[in-house]
């Protein structure tokens, strides 16, 4: 049984990308004080919309746009429900996931197994041919680099810019932010839609680039793992990246172990990425006082503007 570390790393980056995209979007949503449990639903909407458009138009770029659009439409429903109609965020988010899974199955019926175009890779063959570094650094599709850049961008915006400061302020204490004249509902609408776009992009990557196929329930809990990543990463962008790669790494590794037929039950291997990721992140963020410091204090609480 020989597992090639280079192909393993290449695989882990690919496997991690959908989760990473969804998680970084949800991180921004939660930093603004909104808990959207509908990530799984938005991801699968992104996956099905992306796949359909990729098949019909033959354009991967259009597929990504469609994936974002499909998930953002679902996110908009959530935003209206929770921010305008003041519905409970937890219940709305769960409903969103169920709705998204069902709607995606409906839209995608008949598309299973149809061909989609292959995503282009931005770097020339010569670079990819470099031993070790070539495949690891230069062999991926564009979206992988976009996802990593997005982590950096989200960190920078949240930590260093005024827009990020306002988002954090709204998530920390929406009443105070309102008293200072910030548009809490408007800001949260924007972050919820951003979170939807990210989740949709992750879903489209999954169906169009990674699996290159569509089947029901193909996200298989990736949206839930993204949600868990955000919490256990203590709302820190860098840790979300680490967690996503850890998840991807174990997922890629356990597939190879299954293929090598090691004497571990398949069910346990299947579950291992979820288990290991959560255990490791729980240990990292075990200092509860520090974790609470980073948690948005207004997370999940409905905002009523007191006039």
């Amino acid at each position, binding site marked *: 049984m020989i597992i090639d570390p280079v192909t393993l790393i290449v695989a882990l980056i690919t496997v991690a990308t959908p989760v990473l995209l969804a998680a970084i979007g949800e991180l921004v949503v939660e930093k603004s004080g909104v808990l959207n449990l509908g990530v799984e639903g938005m991801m699968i909407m992104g996956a099905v919309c992306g796949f359909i458009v990729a098949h019909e138009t033959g354009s991967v770029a259009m597929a990504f746009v469609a994936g974002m659009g499909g998930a953002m439409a679902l996110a908009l429903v959530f935003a209206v429900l929770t921010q305008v109609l003041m519905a409970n965020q937890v219940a709305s988010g769960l409903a969103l996931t169920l709705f998204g899974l069902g709607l995606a199955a409906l839209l995608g019926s008949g598309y299973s197994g149809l061909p989609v175009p292959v995503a282009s890779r931005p770097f020339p063959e010569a670079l990819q041919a470099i031993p070790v570094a070539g495949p690891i650094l230069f062999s991926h599709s564009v979206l992988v680099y976009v996802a990593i850049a997005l982590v950096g961008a989200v960190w920078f915006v949240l930590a260093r810019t*005024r827009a990020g*400061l*306002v988002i*954090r*302020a709204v998530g*920390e*204490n929406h*009443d*105070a*932010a309102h*008293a*200072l*004249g*910030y548009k809490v509902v408007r800001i949260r609408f924007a972050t919820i839609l951003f979170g939807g776009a990210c989740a949709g992009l992750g879903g489209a990557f999954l169906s169009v680039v990674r699996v290159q196929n569509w089947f029901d329930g193909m996200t298989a809990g990736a949206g839930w793992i993204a949600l868990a990543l955000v919490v256990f990463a203590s709302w820190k962008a860098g840790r979300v990246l680490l967690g996503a790669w850890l998840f991807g790494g174990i997922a890629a590794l356990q597939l190879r172990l299954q293929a090598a037929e090691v004497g571990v039950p398949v069910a346990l291997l299947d579950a291992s990425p979820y288990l290991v990721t959560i255990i490791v992140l729980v240990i990292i963020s075990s200092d509860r*006082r*520090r974790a*609470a*410091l*980073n948690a948005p*204090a207004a997370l999940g609480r409905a905002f009523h503007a007191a*006039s």
Partner: protein
Amino acid sequence: MTALLAIEGLTKAYPGVVANDDVSFAIQTGEVHALLGENGAGKSTLVKMIYGLVKPDRGVMRLRGAPYAPAEPRAARAAGVAMVFQHFSLFEALNVAENIALGMENPPKPRDLAERIRKVSETYGLPLDPFRLVGDLSAGERQRVEIIRCLLQDPKLLIMDEPTSVLTPQEVEILFHTLRKLAAEGTAILYISHKLEEIRTLCDTATILRLGKKVATCTPRDVTAAHMAELMVGKSLSVPARDAHEPGAVLLKVEGLSVSAASPFGTSLRDVTLEVRAGEVLGIGGVAGNGQDELLSVLSGETPVAAGSVTLKGVALGALGPEARRGLGLLCAPEERLGHAAAPDMSLTENALLTGRGRKGLEARGFVDWSRTRGFAEAIIARFDVRTPGPGVAARALSGGNLQKFVIGREILQDPVVLVVNQPTWGVDASAAAAIRQALLDLAQGGAAVIVISQDLDELLEISDLFCALNEGRLSVPRPARGLGMEEIGLMLGGAHDMHEVAR
């Protein structure tokens, strides 16, 4: 000379209540103008209109003669109106500079901003480190953050909503010094408070509101505090009274108690020792965030501790939970009415059941006896003059003062051996506060021990037999409350630990 801000016929009605009815007054440049009134008199609504948070139904405002109708706080700030809120509008997880930047239209770069914060804080004698986390600051320091945030805007009118309610006497002195300096430089200050003596020392003019209407304008220095109180309330108030008596046996004893804080901005209790005797009222003073909530949760049983560190009549109950302690006679009424002392969306009957089920026998074999429970709720309502249509009303629907009377009454009617209350009259108007204090005194008169945790020093001096101060989780040695001066109390609150030796 035109007034800086002239208010004419301002009216604002909410469904079922007229918050402001035809209010007119004027504030001059460089004047410290007090806005006085009980809770619900319409002070907050009035300043919210000036600050652009609420739109008036009728009436006009003029700023230096020009029409002034801010659509939002941003517009008010641009016009030179700044406001320091009663409940600080600060973000605990952000640092001082970030908090200040959020309140500015065009904040400079972080480094320049930090420099300006340092400069302004030195000019006005308000020391503050721009990079500290607001969650780690004391209430007085937090207020400085708010004030400096306002001062950086170079305001013409500074609105302060009950600024001294959380400050030590020394911090109040510093604040007044700053405000006088600002007024001398030409900034007008609209000062909202119901602390009459403070207004008499600080303010040039006072406008008094009652039930949304302006009832009087006066010069505070020329009238007595009692006169202003009568204008506010519309009747004269009685001071709580009771007969002198000798304290009885020690009922509750806490020894060498140390508990580390449960939340990042909590306070750890350090080696707290106290005892109360039958018939005694122990007042625990201290600025918010010095361990009051933690002390209450240790006494109530929400935070279990070593069994022997809390004893009631010699019975060790430190490890017991709240219900078991209630059974033994140790009852508590926490500070936060909605969500801690009472469940907001449950009816008064249900809330009566929550703490009274054991002592009042409101349940049998796991079934609730609703008729007895309703009877208990009705008894509380009748005995403590809770203004409500009936016991079926949700706790949330009651005004702060009425709910507080209900919550305290609920515990008192259970005949506690020891009652612990935290901030019993916080946000409660003067007449309800007097009723609550009298009820606590009557309870002590009847042989129970009462511990009152409060930030209102006047209240503590009025009802306590013994006074001690809680500072950074440490409890000072108790001293007889009678004859204790503000100066000494200020030192106790400020944490002069060597005072312990003097006290002994």
